[in-house]
């Protein structure tokens, strides 16, 4: 199981997390229909690194972007996603 370094909680087991989607598939509500459908239905899906949106669903419920290698399963970076964290 992956060990994901949650920006809020520190390293936690993958069981607490859920994969949501790739960053390149993000559809903004204000996107035009064609752009939205292109983002939704056309994935780079590289056999290598990609940015993915995950959520610490069963932990702090926070969202984050993982830079992850799909072959080695190494997690290269994690950054929080969402409202600015308070001090």
């Amino acid at each position, binding site marked *: *199981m*992956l060990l994901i370094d949650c920006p809020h909680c520190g390293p936690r087991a*993958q*069981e607490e997390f*859920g*994969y*949501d*989607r*790739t960053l390149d598939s993000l559809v903004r509500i204000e996107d035009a229909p064609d752009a939205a*459908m292109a983002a*939704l*239905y*056309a*994935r*780079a*899906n*590289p*056999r290598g690194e*990609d940015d*993915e949106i*995950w959520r610490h669903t069963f932990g702090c419920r926070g969202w984050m972007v993982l830079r*992850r290698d*799909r*072959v*080695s*399963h190494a997690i290269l970076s994690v950054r929080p996603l969402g409202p600015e964290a308070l001090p």
Partner: protein
Amino acid sequence: MSGRYSALALLRGALGGHRHWGRAWRAAEPDGPYDVVVIGGGGHGLATAYYLASQHGVRKVAVVEKGWIGGGNTGRNTTIVRSNYRQPQLQRLLEHSLKLWEGLSDELNYNVMFSPRGALFLGHSDADMTRLAERGDSLRAMGIDAELLDLAAVRRLVPLLDCSPTARWPVQGGLIQRRGGTARHDAVAWGYARAADRLGVDIIENCEVTGFTRQGDAVTGVETTRGTIAAGKVAICVAGHSGHVAGLAGIRLPIESHTLQAYVTEPVKPMIDTVIMSQSLHCYISQSDKGGIVAGGDPDGFPSYAQRGQPMRLEDAIAQAIALVPALSRLRMVRCWSGVTDMSFDGSPIIGDLPLRNLHLNGGWCYGGFKATPGSGHLYAHHLATGSPHPIAAPFDLARFAVGRTIDEAGVGPMPQHR
């Protein structure tokens, strides 16, 4: 070259120390230009090449395979064959395939051990039973066999099933497709390879595609680790890796690659004679001819090309299998493995043209490609040979996503991890 297979030929072999058997398929070298280069020596690619040669007379065909044939999902699935889907487009596609399965061993002169021992969906609630009846009714209306079973009939079929009303997921009944069953997965690749080879198809192993040669918006061939190979048409057939290969041509697809795991136990004497699936649980169980219980569950739920699973999903799938058949508890897993699956964004395959001329795709099979192998190859060959889709394959074009004509069996929408 190998001769025809038969009991008599085996007897001859017994007398002669089996020295007369030749290679099942040649180790071909690239010898372009080809009319069609099929990328991917899995069951689908080899079937495509075979039907191109046998049905359409296209003999100058090569199958290029990055490793050894049948080494991807063809050799990693749980070998279930059935056509009892709910959406009519999928019913037509898989039924077309099932009919080909029924004559496949004879057609290929290679015993693929297609064993129509029945594919049984279990229902665990009234709601499940209604959905199973709906599925069965829709199948019957399409002329496909389906039979609704009550609890007593299910128990007769699978005596070791936990049929107690107090089970956490009590079995209420089931829906069986008696023509469904299993087949020997490796034999499908080998059988198609041998038959295609006899028709002159070049099967080129250890030959990975690294790029495409192009002239304007037309593809003219493939670049490989064994040199450039010119082709009139290039047919991608690499489910699991469609995203990667299409990416070499700069094309993005509604596909994400995810891991699916399966496992097999030590062999035991016959205990499960049917393929068991469940409407509410996420596991499927059968017993191989060798005696091992072969089973699987849900995909791991995140993108991966690693052919390496995570224990959590495996544990869930095993727990559910034991919930259905408690006697499995003391059997031992001897091996678990993973495949990389093309998770398409409506759960259905994509068969058809790509935005570049002479480049075609057959992929997006999610976790259900094995059962489609003969049909998929047959329909794809038709498309490649005639230049237009076979009516059964036509709904599965890539354009369906842009226009909204998706074929969503599970009704869960575009996110693959929900499927």
